[in-house]
């Protein structure tokens, strides 16, 4: 993005009543164009938000950080440069660089990083903090020639790396990936000495733009996709199963098919991080079953569910997979080597992201694996992520048993030994709650999404409550699957947000959650901040059942009215509350 484009973007008007987004930028250099680019990139990705990007007192780096604890913002950006570790590492300071002062510079750097860490810990307790590690080349401080790394340079990099490792483990802290920045902004084209001396802004404009774009991606990370559907022949492995047989397909160096192995390794890593991986292949199902049992497969059968191997259109296979996963096509990527198959799927499921597997281009396969990291990457992998695939398998088993025996849900759940646990613990705030709120579409009371700051504000209000429900039965645990946030006022419970994972459907958990609200707060009435969305049909159906009429915004359920919808078939219900 050019500076003139950034200025034009931030000058465009937002609609009346647009929600605001406030970002605090902390750096010791003059923030100038970095501030402009950051506002523009945020505006580009959030056209409906009015962006306010503030910076503190220029030069007062450590002084500005504690001030952030007092401000209400959506995120803080802390951009560190080498001069922040010791002023002698900045161009505008003429402190000497002779070897005798190396130890003193290092001592200062260590002290400053400790102070920084402490300040960042305090700030991140209030709002998300994005950290930018020094992006500029170290000044030529060392006595060694430039081609040889000097000890002082290595020590300084070690010092900042240690700081980064600790900072990355602080909840609510995200660090801009230096490696991604290196790829996008060459090190030699970052520093602008003329601008640094004239204005105090040390970056060349392309570097400032690239850095701002990466920062904006960490302030508002894109929602990761949930599932990947892969073809088999000439994609997951090299060769056509129907022609070469089970032992004829390969994914190794010996058969010049190593990149298929790399692709498998990438899919296995995604599966272990909670990404659903399924197969849509035009093949004989029995042969595929045999191939997926090969012991040397990197992506083993246990990582893949479901497997749709048949001779019908792949769009049909994908429709069935989406139904099993219970997610929308827009949350899924389909990878196939055949442009024809991709086009057929795209025509039927236009929202699906279709990617051609570049089977003859090793470099492109390598780049595909990096792209998959961007598409599916998330800040952390929760216990629920690891459970996702297995719980979908369990749901299939459960549905089959239930249907097979024609049992009513209550009877079925009784024999399933269903256990629910409710937690009303607000501190420390469980990040899973906001994750569920922000990604659940179907059983979502109103579709309301929250920033981390607005969520903390809602939950931390004194009269508010937060309910997190976890479920397990004899088929295995589903983990934390429902979240309700609201407040209690004079015998009434007001529910602001209520979501439940689609994996938990069909178990009457929503009935038991509502019952829990009546019992826990001894309430006569529960008022629901219901808003219809184009996806929250399951909430509407549940409320229609309970209210015996179509739900409307701010509808309420009375205790008497709900009594006949109580469910008593739980093996065990536990409640956790530390407050």
């Amino acid at each position: 993005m050019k500076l003139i484009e950034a200025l034009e973007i931030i000058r465009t008007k937002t609609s009346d009543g647009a929600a605001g987004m406030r970002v605090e930028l902390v750096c010791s250099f003059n923030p100038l164009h970095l501030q402009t680019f950051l506002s523009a990139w945020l505006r580009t990705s959030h056209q409906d938000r009015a962006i306010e990007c503030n910076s503190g007192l220029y030069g007062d780096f450590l002084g500005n950080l504690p001030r952030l604890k007092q401000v209400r913002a959506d995120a803080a950006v802390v951009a560190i440069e080498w001069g922040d570790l010791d002023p002698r590492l900045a161009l505008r300071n003429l402190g000497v660089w002779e070897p005798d002062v190396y130890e003193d510079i290092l001592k200062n750097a260590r002290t400053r990083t400790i102070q920084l860490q402490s300040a960042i810990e305090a700030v991140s307790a209030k709002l998300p903090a994005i950290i930018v590690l020094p992006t500029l080349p170290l000044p030529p401080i060392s006595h060694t020639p430039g081609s040889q790394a000097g000890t002082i340079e290595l020590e300084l990099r070690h010092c900042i790396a240690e700081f980064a490792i600790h900072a990355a483990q602080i909840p609510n802290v995200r660090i801009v990936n230096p490696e991604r920045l290196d790829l996008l902004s060459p090190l030699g084209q970052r520093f602008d000495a003329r601008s640094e001396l004239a204005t105090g802004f040390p970056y060349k404009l392309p570097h400032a733009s690239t850095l701002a774009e990466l920062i904006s991606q960490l302030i508002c990370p894109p929602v990761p996709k949930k599932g990947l559907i892969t073809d088999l022949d000439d994609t997951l492995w090299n060769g056509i199963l129907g022609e070469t047989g089970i032992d004829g397909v390969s994914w190794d160096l010996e058969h010049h098919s190593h990149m298929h192995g790399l692709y498998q390794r990438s899919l296995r890593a995604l599966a272990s991080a909670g990404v659903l991986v399924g197969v849509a292949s035009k093949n004989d199902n029995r042969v595929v079953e045999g191939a997926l049992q090969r012991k040397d497969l990197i992506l083993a059968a246990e990582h893949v569910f479901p497997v749709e191997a048949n001779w019908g259109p792949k769009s049909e296979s994908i429709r069935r997979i989406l139904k099993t996963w219970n997610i929308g096509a827009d949350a899924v990527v389909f990878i196939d080597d055949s442009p024809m198959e991709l086009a057929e799927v795209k025509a039927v499921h236009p929202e699906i992201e279709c990617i051609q597997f570049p089977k003859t281009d090793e470099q492109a396969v390598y780049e595909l694996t990096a792209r998959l990291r961007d598409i599916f990457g998330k800040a952390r992998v929760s216990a629920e992520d690891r459970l996702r695939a297995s719980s979908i398998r369990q749901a299939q088993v459960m549905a089959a048993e239930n249907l097979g025996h024609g049992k009513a849900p209550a009877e079925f759940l009784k024999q399933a030994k269903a256990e629910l646990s409710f937690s009303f613990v607000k501190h420390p705030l469980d990040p899973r709650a906001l994750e569920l709120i922000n990604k659940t579409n179907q059983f979502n009371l109103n579709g309301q999404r929250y920033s981390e700051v607005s969520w903390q504000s809602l939950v931390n209000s004194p009269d508010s409550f937060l309910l997190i429900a976890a479920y397990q039965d004899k088929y295995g645990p589903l983990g934390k699957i429902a979240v309700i946030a609201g407040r209690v006022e004079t015998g009434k419970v007001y529910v602001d947000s209520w979501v439940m994972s689609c994996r938990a459907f069909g178990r009457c958990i929503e009935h038991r959650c509502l019952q829990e609200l009546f019992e826990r707060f001894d309430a006569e009435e529960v008022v629901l901040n219901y808003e219809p969305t184009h996806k929250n049909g399951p909430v509407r159906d549940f409320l229609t059942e309970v209210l015996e009429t179509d739900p409307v915004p701010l509808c309420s359920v009375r205790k008497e009215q709900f009594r006949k919808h109580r469910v008593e078939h739980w093996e065990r219900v536990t409640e956790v509350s530390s407050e």
Partner: protein
Amino acid sequence: MNDTRQRLIRCFRAVFPSLAESEIPQATASTVESWDSVASVTLLATIEEEFGIEMAPEDMPDLISFEKMLSYLHAKGS
């Protein structure tokens, strides 16, 4: 020549959005209220990037009006 003028007007419009397009050719640092030091730095950086030039520090203090900037760009061959 005309293209340079239009591109320079675009730079001014981006930095001084409150100026009407007809006011831009008469714009000077002393008549445009929002033309402060930050605006000056932003304007010069925008022009450098837009025209692919690097201004010498000694030239900058003189570039205090639209007309002077236009003459400067013409002299630079833009």
